[in-house]
């Protein structure tokens, strides 16, 4: 009798969960979409481009990339992609035809997403209006335009696989790590890169003195007391992620302005707190990017 009740309850939970999940995929996906900041590179905001219709230029030392159209348009976008195609793109950095993506698409971070988050994200993207605008070709110099060479780059710099929680850390820190690494892909801009464009894994979150070779500096957000955010209070972190205000009362602009507007301000307070809990306990990296940071 007890066993029957248990099984019945289990089935009921399963049933309601899948119904709930189906109804909720798109809503969950919208949250993943915000947390992962997809809109930024895939929308040409400057020219009032349609959401996810692509065309935004991303300058790098290797040439210019243009964020592609990732609306669900069957020809111009990703409308024909299967779930497996979508997962392979994010998890392994490969197109449906098997070709390798350039790591300007941060699959190096998205590889850590759960399957569920990836598929909810796809459900959300597929719920948005489509655009027939063709994606612009990248303008890369030789040999960086040889897509096959990305195979070698991946061998050197890419570790595919879903995020694994660290059992030695709290649930909050693990949630923060997931949000920061897998979704927010914060390290992609806030860390220095080597000559081949690979992240310096020994200096993660230590800032970048010459971001994407464009001369822009990206702050050190590791908890180093002198050169990072080690002196920030928890309230300072919260305010930066929630509204974009620095402890000095200035408001961030540029790329971080977009991150705040599109991503961090849209997270739940608990998720922001989790990111902060994670960021405050990572390894302090000594690298002075800005005076008096």
């Amino acid at each position, binding site marked *: 009798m007890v066993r029957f009740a248990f099984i019945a309850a289990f089935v009921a939970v399963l049933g309601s969960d899948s119904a709930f999940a189906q109804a909720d995929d798109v809503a969950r996906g919208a949250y993943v979409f915000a947390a992962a900041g997809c809109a930024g590179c895939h929308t040409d*905001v*400057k020219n009032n481009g349609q959401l996810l219709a692509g065309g935004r230029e991303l300058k790098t030392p290797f040439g210019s990339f243009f964020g592609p159209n990732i609306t669900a348009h069957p020809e111009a976008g990703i409308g024909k992609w299967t779930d497996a195609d979508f997962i392979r793109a994010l998890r392994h950095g490969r197109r449906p035809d098997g070709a390798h993506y350039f790591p300007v698409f941060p699959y190096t971070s998205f590889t850590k997403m759960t399957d569920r988050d990836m598929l909810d994200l796809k459900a959300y993207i597929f719920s948005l209006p489509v655009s027939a605008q063709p994606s612009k070709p990248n303008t890369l110099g030789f040999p960086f335009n040889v897509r096959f060479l990305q195979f070698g780059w991946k061998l050197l710099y890419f570790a595919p696989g879903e995020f694994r929680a660290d059992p030695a850390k709290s649930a909050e820190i693990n949630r923060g790590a997931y949000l920061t690494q897998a979704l927010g892909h914060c390290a992609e801009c806030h860390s220095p890169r080597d000559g081949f464009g690979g992240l310096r894994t020994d200096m993660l979150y230590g800032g970048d003195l010459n971001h994407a070779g464009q001369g*822009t*500096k990206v702050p050190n957000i590791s908890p180093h007391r002198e050169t990072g955010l080690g002196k920030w209070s928890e*309230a300072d972190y*919260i*305010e930066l992620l929630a*509204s*974009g*205000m620095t402890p*000095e*009362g*200035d*408001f*961030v*602009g*540029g*790329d*971080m*302005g*977009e991150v*705040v*507007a599109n991503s961090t*301000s849209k997270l739940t307070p608990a998720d922001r707190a989790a990111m902060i809990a994670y960021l405050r306990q990572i390894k302090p990296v000594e690298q002075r990017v*800005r005076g008096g940071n």
Partner: protein
Amino acid sequence: MKATIRTALAGLVVVMISAGAASAQAPEVVQRQDIMKANAASMRVLVPMARGDQPFNGMAAAQAATAIAESAQRAKALFPSAATAGGTRAQPAIWERKSEFEGYFDRISEAARNAARFAAAGDEAAFKGAFPAIGQTCVACHTPFQRPAN
């Protein structure tokens, strides 16, 4: 003696360079930077109240928000030409999309005036509801028009 002269000369060069840098800044640049600094000070009064980290003081909040609203209209006139971009964080996009840029000053005036009105009336909940629009406007305008601090 030689060392002293060398030090003195080096000092003179430093003074000349910094004087040169100072004179390269147009008066509008100094004025608008002062406005932005004052706005930062106002935000540092408002944010802790809006977050509930500091007790709500309607008068102080109304004053700080009104200061932001009024300064925005003055600041709008302080971007006369791209020639005033030198040595500042102003992006050339300001002069390419002037009307969009100027629209943000109206938006922030309105948002700040709105928050000030609720604060002056002592309506803490309404103030807290109206407040985020100020910071959102700051970020929305800084994103395309202000170079990140270096």
